[in-house]
């Protein structure tokens, strides 16, 4: 259940960023979560509902970008989509590869509600 740790880290990052930018609350949050990033989405959604309670993210609209895995074969340089770590290069069958994307796990953007205009 590491997904709860992930949610709590998101809450920490979002709260710190909101305070730094002088926002009053967070309206939207956009997350990059690669398909190879060890996150089980059902567990994540469950942890999210629990983890954001009474935090700055409690009323937020969440958008998750699921980024598909892509790799380049180290033997034949073929670029291909990677669903699983055990997938082989479809061109030459090699398992030696450089993973180009799909492991992302980051807070990309947030929409903040600004503080009341200063007089």
């Amino acid at each position, binding site marked *: 259940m590491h997904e709860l740790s992930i949610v709590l880290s998101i809450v920490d990052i979002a709260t710190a960023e909101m305070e730094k930018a002088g926002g009053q609350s967070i309206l939207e949050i956009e997350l990059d979560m690669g398909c190879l990033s060890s996150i089980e989405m059902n567990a994540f959604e469950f942890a999210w509902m629990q983890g954001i309670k009474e935090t700055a993210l409690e009323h937020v*609209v969440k958008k998750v970008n699921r980024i598909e895995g892509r790799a380049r074969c180290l033997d034949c340089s073929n670029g291909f989509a990677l669903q699983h770590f055990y997938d082989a290069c479809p061109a030459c069958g090699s398992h030696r590869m450089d993973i180009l994307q799909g492991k992302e796990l980051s807070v990309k953007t947030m929409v903040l509600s600004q503080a009341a205009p200063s007089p």
Partner: protein
Amino acid sequence: MCATCGCDAETTVTMHEPGAHMHDHSHHEHTHNHDSSASKVLSVEKDILQENNLLAQRNRGFFEGRNILSFNLVSSPGSGKTSLLEHTLTALKGEMEFAVIEGDQQTTNDADRIHATGTKVVQINTGKGCHLDAHMVLHAVQNMQLKQNSVLFIENVGNLVCPSMFDLGEKERVVIISVTEGDDKPLKYPDMFHTATVCIINKMDLLPYVPIDLEKLKTNALHINPSLKIFTLSCTSGEGMQQWLQWLRARVHEAVTI
């Protein structure tokens, strides 16, 4: 496409807690009612695991500065992490300086077993936590006064899933699997095998009694991680232990000469 978050009609992953949102916000029709003077888009671009990763790098720097070779031992519960440690510590006693950090949800049973070998050990109890993180290791290390040129084993919580995401600052990540667990284990828990540097296949003395294809197990692990260094051994019979110990000696020597 929505100007603020870039979503489109095909994207249905947005979640909204019913009744909690205070302004009119029909996300997929994109009729946002944010008052542009009152809201602002912030580019954050921060790794969610950055706090753990920064602390892990701090640990790593500390280990490297003192020439401490650090291992993170991971496996499912009961694969033989503590047994492997007991046998390793006993066999190499006097040859090199060891310290151990034990991670379990509860009890000091494992630390007691390590303590019995005469090795310095600290137990971390994670309570309900399912993995060790770099922060826990940082505090454990602060109380240990680790010696220069020593070897640190960190035995993670028995769990083949969660610890894979958390860098502790270790030099080598050793995944242990026993032959009773089945040859498809690497396929079922790929993240751990993908992030490990060494794989130890334990309980080889039980091989004649279990329906497992050892070569298939190795192939599966290597398909996920072609650079994995694999050892097959039995803590009970001692079979294969010499190869592991020899590799460990060489690894320590390498660390000293770098």
